[in-house]
């Protein structure tokens, strides 16, 4: 059989135009719902144009016609094999997707905790062995003075040093921490090495600060300062790291027979849930750090701040552990 191109185009053009018009309407109005008859017609037109494309590809030497039909069939194919439901936000499902994803990938979370703990031990050990390393390990001016001196300054302060810049300080903290957490997630694509380094470095900072203040006899101040925001912020960064390791695991694909694309597809919803959950936690932590953590005794008793931080941590643990269990 040899296609008579002109006759073929004349006969089939009405169907192509009908399909092109229908697709154009759907493109202009993505949320439009078709009736059952329209869906049947769309499917018929798609199959007819697919058959036309096959005939053109096999029997005709006409490249322009083939390209045009390819474009039409490609658009119809995406439309017919649509897998997404209209985006209706069901808050309960969105909220529960986060703890469920967290529990599905507990091994990755444990690895994130381990990397941070190893970093913290190293940081603590380094600062105890070499106090001069403080300037390198803690690149924040406020931390470079001795813990006792800082506590004296904070507790004797007569004015609010964040007066007039609490909101902007809070916004800076939120954006910085969300950025760090998203980098921890995205760095999983480096076979997990980037995530591991980032978590280790965070652990070094944390360990050095804790060791410095505990050794300086300021454990209560430290707990009162860190716990209100840290009980949410640190787990959020760990969850970012967890997501990074989930990504790395999908990239490496130990022992599985699925393709890399299938492995990424399988974890994409969980990565999305973990990233969203961690970002929401960091918004809360940023506000608490600015409005609560920076106020010390006598303005806010340490017992109250520590109690608040512990309650937050327990509530978070309960949510991650229990929410959405079948």
């Amino acid at each position, binding site marked *: 059989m040899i296609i008579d*191109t*002109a006759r073929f185009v004349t006969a089939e053009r009405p169907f192509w135009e009908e399909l092109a018009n229908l697709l154009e309407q759907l493109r202009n109005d*993505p949320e439009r719902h078709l009736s059952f008859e329209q869906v049947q017609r769309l499917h018929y037109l798609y199959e007819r144009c697919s058959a036309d*494309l096959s005939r053109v590809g096999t029997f005709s030497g006409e490249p322009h016609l083939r390209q045009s039909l*390819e474009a039409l069939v490609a658009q119809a194919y995406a439309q017919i094999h649509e897998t997404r439901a209209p985006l209706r936000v069901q808050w309960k499902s969105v909220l529960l997707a986060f703890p469920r994803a967290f529990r599905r990938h507990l091994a990755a979370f444990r690895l994130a905790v381990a990397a941070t703990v190893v970093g913290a031990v190293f940081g603590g050990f380094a600062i105890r062995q070499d106090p001069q390393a403080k300037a390198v390990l803690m690149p924040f001016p406020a931390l470079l003075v001795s813990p006792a001196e800082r506590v004296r300054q904070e507790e004797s302060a007569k004015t609010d040093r964040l007066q*007039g810049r609490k909101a902007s300080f809070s916004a800076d903290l939120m*954006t910085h921490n969300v950025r760090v957490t998203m980098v921890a*997630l995205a760095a999983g*694509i480096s076979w997990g090495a980037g995530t591991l380094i980032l978590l280790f470095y965070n652990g070094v900072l944390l360990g050095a600060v804790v060791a410095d203040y505990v050794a300086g006899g300021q454990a209560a101040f430290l707990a009162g300062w860190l716990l209100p925001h840290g009980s949410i912020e640190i787990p959020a960064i760990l969850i970012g790291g967890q997501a990074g390791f989930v990504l790395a695991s999908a990239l490496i694909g130990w022992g599985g027979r699925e393709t890399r694309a299938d492995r990424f597809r399988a974890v*994409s919803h969980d990565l999305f849930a973990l990233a969203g959950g961690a970002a929401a936690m960091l918004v809360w932590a940023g506000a608490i750090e600015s409005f609560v953590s920076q106020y010390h005794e006598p303005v806010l008793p340490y017992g109250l701040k520590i109690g608040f931080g512990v309650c937050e941590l327990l509530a978070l643990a309960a949510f991650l552990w229990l929410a959405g269990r079948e």
Partner: protein
Amino acid sequence: MKNSALLVETPEGVTFSYDLATPVVRGFAWLVDALVLAAISYIVTQISALLRALSPDLAAGVGTASFFVLSIAYGIFCEWRWRGQTIGKRLFGLRVIDSHGLRLRFSQVVLRNLMRFFDGLPLLYLVGAASSLLSRNLQRLGDLVANTVVVRERRWEEPDIERIAPAKYNSLLGWPHLAARLRNAAEPEAVAMAVRAVTQRDRYAPVARVELFQMLAEHFRAAAAFPPEAIEGMSDEEYVRSVLRVIYRAN
């Protein structure tokens, strides 16, 4: 080895292709998006400045948070709402699609945009650009993770037969069995080259044009040998035009 097109085979056994967007074109689209984002940020800054009367601190905080949220949400919102296109991609005729030719899911859109935190390192998307250059389907890391590719959009265009092969007397059609053999033997690539040569003939230098039509005519003569009386007095260019009329029209 890099692909220049993404081939998709449907369950019905039909194969179609998408032209993959190159990193350079994607870079231009990103530049446009960066300018759009800068303009939106400027507007948001002006609006948040109105809060200064209430509280300068609040205005600064809202400005910082808005810029950050906008820089992430811009790509997610546009690519979800416009099915894989931002303003820059629209301008350059690019579209993000699922690597199996399907439409995008929301999680794919979010993931490929979150991966910009890594693709954007250390600056100006160097990691992303390096990844696209090394990837078979020109994917940056975000595309690899989200299973997406960026393609050049092809719109449906009705074939313009009159322009390519205007209706004129064609002596080759006097030998229908040879015309049929020619239609059957002509490869799409050679026909595409002939179409380009005919439609863009005035762009070639005279000598190059003669050589090009000579080569094409020799190629088509080898596919089907018409008797001398059918092609008597016919130049190479006229012969190629007649061949196209045979391929595009039966009468």
